[in-house]
């Protein structure tokens, strides 16, 4: 599958947004789980969805997913600080939970795994309604060990639901290397469910977006779910202020050298999709946008006592 130049530049832009969001939030939140090195997987996962589609993003990249679905960056940033202007007025955190009004299903508790089933349910709804909407169910390599992952995949495969399962495999879970605690490869699991499974170079933006496009098209045609494993690398710590990184220095360096934004940039320039000046302009525009959104969020008001809403628990 080949993407249009426009799509490629949108993808590039979203990768730059991912990086700039990372940089901006890192300054205000030591507990921010960044996407440095994983921008290609993140941006490819959430780009180009349609109205009616649903995404249950991996928590690492969740804010980018919400942005890609149309949420306002300033309000998302406000949600990291719990400001009154956030989409939920400060009741919950936007770093792991996007606003549902944009078709984003977040972590409503801290548990990884269950959102894979929620995405499957959204796909079931699409099938019941006879639409061609799809659901993206994105999860980390560590999260692939949750029973939810198995239950969602078997359920989706046996009912032929329009789900794209995407593993954002950064090869580590907090401190635990996936080679130690994820037996086999995630992509190989697809075979056991009789669905297509493919391992993709997660630092190759084009390969990623092609794989996602193919899986989505298949889902929209009613042919059922697929599994994509984007093999990438967490270039920094588990969260911003995570000091210790026990991973081999040379491994870290080798992956950092394969920075997906830089690789993609070189390719776009090399293939003549855009010249350096154009790409620089995108960079600058994104940087300004992110900075403005952050400045806005920081001056936004804190929530008042009424937001607690002790009687608001029921719809």
């Amino acid at each position: 599958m080949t993407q249009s130049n426009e799509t490629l530049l949108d993808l590039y832009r979203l990768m730059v947004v991912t990086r700039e969001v990372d940089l901006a939030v890192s300054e205000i939140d030591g507990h921010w789980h960044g996407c440095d090195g994983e921008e290609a997987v993140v941006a490819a996962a959430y780009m180009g969805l349609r109205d009616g589609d649903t995404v249950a993003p991996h928590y690492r990249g969740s804010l980018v997913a919400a942005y890609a679905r149309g949420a306002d960056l300033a309000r998302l940033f406000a949600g990291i600080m719990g400001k009154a202007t956030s989409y939920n007025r400060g009741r919950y955190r936007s770093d792991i939970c996007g606003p549902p009004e944009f078709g984003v299903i977040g972590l409503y508790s801290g548990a990884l795994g269950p959102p894979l089933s929620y995405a499957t349910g959204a796909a079931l709804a699409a099938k019941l309604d006879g639409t061609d909407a799809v659901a993206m169910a994105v999860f980390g390599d560590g999260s692939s060990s949750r029973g939810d992952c198995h239950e969602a995949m078997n359920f989706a495969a046996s009912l032929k639901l329009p789900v794209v399962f995407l593993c954002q495999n950064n090869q580590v879970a907090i401190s635990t290397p996936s080679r130690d605690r994820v037996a086999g490869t995630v992509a190989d699991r697809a075979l056991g469910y009789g669905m297509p499974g493919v391992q993709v170079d997660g630092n190759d933006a084009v390969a990623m977006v092609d794989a996602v496009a193919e899986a989505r098209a298949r889902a929209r045609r009613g042919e059922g779910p697929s599994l994509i494993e984007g093999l990438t690398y967490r270039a920094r710590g588990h969260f911003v202020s995570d000091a210790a990184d026990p991973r081999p220095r040379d491994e870290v360096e080798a992956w950092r050298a394969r920075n997906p934004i830089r690789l993609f940039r070189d390719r776009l320039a090399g293939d003549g999709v855009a010249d350096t000046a154009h790409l620089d302009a995108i960079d600058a525009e994104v940087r300004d946008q992110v900075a403005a959104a952050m400045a806005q969020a920081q001056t936004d008001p804190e929530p008042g006592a009424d937001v607690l809403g002790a009687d608001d628990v029921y719809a």
Partner: protein
Amino acid sequence: MARQTFQEATVAAIAHEMRRDRNVFIMGEDIGAFGGPLHSCKGLWDEFGAQGRVIDTPISEGGFVGAGVGAALAGKRPIVDLMFLEFMGLVIHQFGLDGGAMHYYSDGKAKVPLVVRAKYGVGPFHGHAYDFHSWLLNVPGVKVVAPATPSDAKGLMAASIRDDNPVLFMEHMGLYHAGREEVPEGEYVIPLGKADVKRRGRDVTIVASALMTKRALAAADILAQDGIEAEVVDLRTLAPLDEETVLESVARTGRLVVACEAVKSGGSASEVAALVVEKGFAHLKAPIARVAPPNVPVPFHRELEKLYLPDAGRIAEAARAAAAA
């Protein structure tokens, strides 16, 4: 009116709501052509199966309750047949913690109109009896419904399906096929969150639900022979609790017995007792008695099961003691 069992009335409500609203569908293990264990979905396949609205699921409780949450978020009104309440422990995260939090955490943007129905209770079906509802009272955002009669089952199931929150609908196997009563046909909705005074009395209040309501009524008959007039309050909805009705009753009788099938420690009977000693203390003339099973898993042998579960005699005894205190 139609003479229906609890099971029939429940299914009638589901069928009625499925006719009324195309967004309502049902899924669970073996609920399709098979009709569901204990006929929990009898007839639904014939009427709605071809529309794809009666879905057999794999044995993946977290997966399909989770799918229910996801479908509800997407605008459907799923009913999940969990088969047995015992399996709530496998799905409380999806149903309760996540499902119950979504509305609040999204500041009202998300709605999760999901019904999980589940069979439980000591009865003719020997096993899967455990009554696990009490936990959910401590999980914000979910509702818990436990009808005692066929009519209530019908009206409360309709209301549960129309409710925009995750609702646990409890189906007691000791009531399931245990006799028919006249049940209103067609549209029949009983609001959630309202208790029902099933018998009036001035000497002592007995609060109960599900099978315990039946036994409390039998206890009231026994007590009447001794000249004690017991009022029986059937909670019907356990979360949210109808505080008013309970407090109003105790304000008149001054005495309270709470009968509950969940084990005593940490059971929902404790919640009712705590409510009354907090807000109705001035009216209390006697200790509040909780009549509930001991703190052990449901034993297997039929005689042990009987010793385990409170019966009318034990409820009456507690009420007599309260009335005399």
